[in-house]
């Protein structure tokens, strides 16, 4: 379990570089230190799985890596630059356990929502969204509201949305947690395949050893540090 990139990727600049990340939360009268100095470097096209027990800080780590939360200590860079909210839409995509599709929008518009964060979508963006939906096997369901889709279909829409802006980094937080085994396997296969094709760096938080085994690097978080 090595937080450093594999030798095949060391000649490129890291897409994600985290050093000494620390995070603690107040609990009662004291505080709990969830992350105790996490180091992580991820290269373009690399896929990294993070496993660990429930409550060990996997989701907290993803929140720090995505810039949604700030570390108590440590440094983080996105492609060599400090993380900034206004760069998030273009730089990274996120996939969550609970999909988080917008119920008022259909599948196509949910995918296009990521593009809308950058600019009002034109024909090219619509074509790409339709293409991504076709890639995840949902072209016939493009005009269906998210409430009319099954769990697996929703997660595939979420994957397409995460890749809509061709991000350099994709963070997936237990994306198969709410899916049955067969659907979960299919979603992971799809995620890895699309990331490979587009050389998108992937950080996959999962409990599933089989899914973790399919990534190029495997990390285990224990007591707030990578083992």
């Amino acid at each position: 379990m090595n937080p450093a990139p594999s030798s095949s990727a060391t000649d490129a600049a890291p897409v994600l570089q985290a050093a000494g990340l620390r995070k603690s939360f107040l609990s009662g009268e004291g505080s709990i230190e969830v992350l105790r100095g996490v180091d992580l470097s991820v290269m373009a096209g690399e896929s990294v799985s993070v496993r660990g027990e429930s409550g060990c800080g996997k989701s907290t780590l993803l929140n720090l890596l995505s810039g949604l939360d700030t570390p108590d200590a440590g440094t983080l860079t996105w492609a060599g630059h400090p993380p900034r909210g206004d760069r998030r839409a273009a730089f990274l995509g996120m996939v969550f356990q609970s999909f988080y599709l917008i119920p008022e929008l259909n599948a196509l518009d949910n995918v296009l929502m990521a593009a809308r964060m950058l600019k009002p979508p034109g024909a090219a963006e619509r074509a790409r969204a339709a293409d991504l939906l076709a890639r995840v096997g949902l072209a016939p369901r493009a005009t269906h509201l998210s409430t009319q889709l099954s769990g697996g279909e929703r997660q595939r829409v979420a994957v397409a949305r995460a890749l809509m802006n061709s991000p350099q980094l994709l963070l997936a937080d237990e994306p198969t947690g709410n899916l049955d085994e067969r659907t979960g396997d299919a979603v992971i296969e799809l995620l890895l395949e699309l990331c490979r094709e587009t050389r998108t760096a992937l950080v996959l938080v999962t409990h599933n050893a089989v899914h973790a085994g399919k990534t190029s690097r495997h990390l285990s978080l224990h007591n707030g540090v990578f083992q």
Partner: protein
Amino acid sequence: MPWYLYLALKQLFPAGRKFPFFTAISVLGVALGVMVLVVSTSVMGGFGREIRRWTVDTTGDVQVRADGGINRPADFLAQLTKVPGVVAATPFAEGVVMLEHNLKPSYPAVRGIDVERVEAVTPLSKYIYFGKLDDLDDDSVILSSQLAAAIGARVGDKVEVYSPLLIEALKSDEAYLGRELRVCGIFEIGHQALDSSLVFVTLRTMQDLYGRRGSADGFDVKITPGLDPDEAAARINAALPPALHGHARSWMEINHDLIFILQLEQNMIFFLLTFIIIVAAFSVTSSLLISVVRKTREIGLLGALGGQPRQVAACFCFQGLVIGMAGTVTGLALGATVLTFRDNIVAAFTRLTQSEAAIERFYQFKQLPAHYSASYITAIIVCTITVCTLAGLLPAWRAARLKPVEALRSE
């Protein structure tokens, strides 16, 4: 369209649902407030217009009176028509008489008019629905409709008229016979007080009744259309000979108190009914706050997708703006509909409460007047849209304060 405006519209009018219930309720609340405001201010504006109509149509734009009367009306008329802005003028004399028909007495105000000139100043003919103005001579009278009905007089009937000279004659132990006049016309202006207690005779008849020997009480004046009546009155006052002890007043000055009270009522109604809009805006705030709570995880997602807090705030603020605009348009349409059918509505209401006569007596008008005031309609539109947009601020602030990490974690 920026994503926050796009999403705001999608949240208000979700795809796949034929009837956006929450949005419709919010819009309806605002629309009802706007409708009540439009109807109330327009009816009050209508009262003002009616006062102008019956004042100008019976006494002209400006009225000139002299303390001791005008002894040479023809000479004064020549002077008056030279004043810039004066189009026409007609002399009048006023008083009160006792009028009797079939032993039914009444005590109307009587107005002596110059039949040759009066139509150039006031469109009296259009209110005469039995008989003609041209039939008015020194032995005839035109009665108001309700007065004619009260004493049972019709065109062609004879009425006895007694003036205050009767009292003077009685003091001197002289015999005084009333003047017999033929009813040559019946008019209705649409104002209860005028329609129940005013009669027209010729100026000469009025001079005879009051023993004035060729003098007039004053002149009704028509001015150039578009000219400010107060300005015209000022010009006439400047041209009046000091020896006359006369004074010209515009129709607005004559009815100053009534117009002031109506304007005050109109402003007060606008002020008070604006609170209906504010109450409706609170319901907009409440429904948007519920929306923020229901969509907490979506708001977290927007942050995760790259949305900035100010953009999330704009999304909810815009929803308030859209509700305000939709409510305003709907309210204006509802208000216009109610005003179009106002007489039917009032008739139905008065029939139901059996209060037709009381309403007419109290409000002086047979029909409910209405006048759209551009300034009030503009004020209603601006006020409603502003208040509703402000109503979105609190939910917007709440939404913008949500931290994406915590919002995504919320249950």
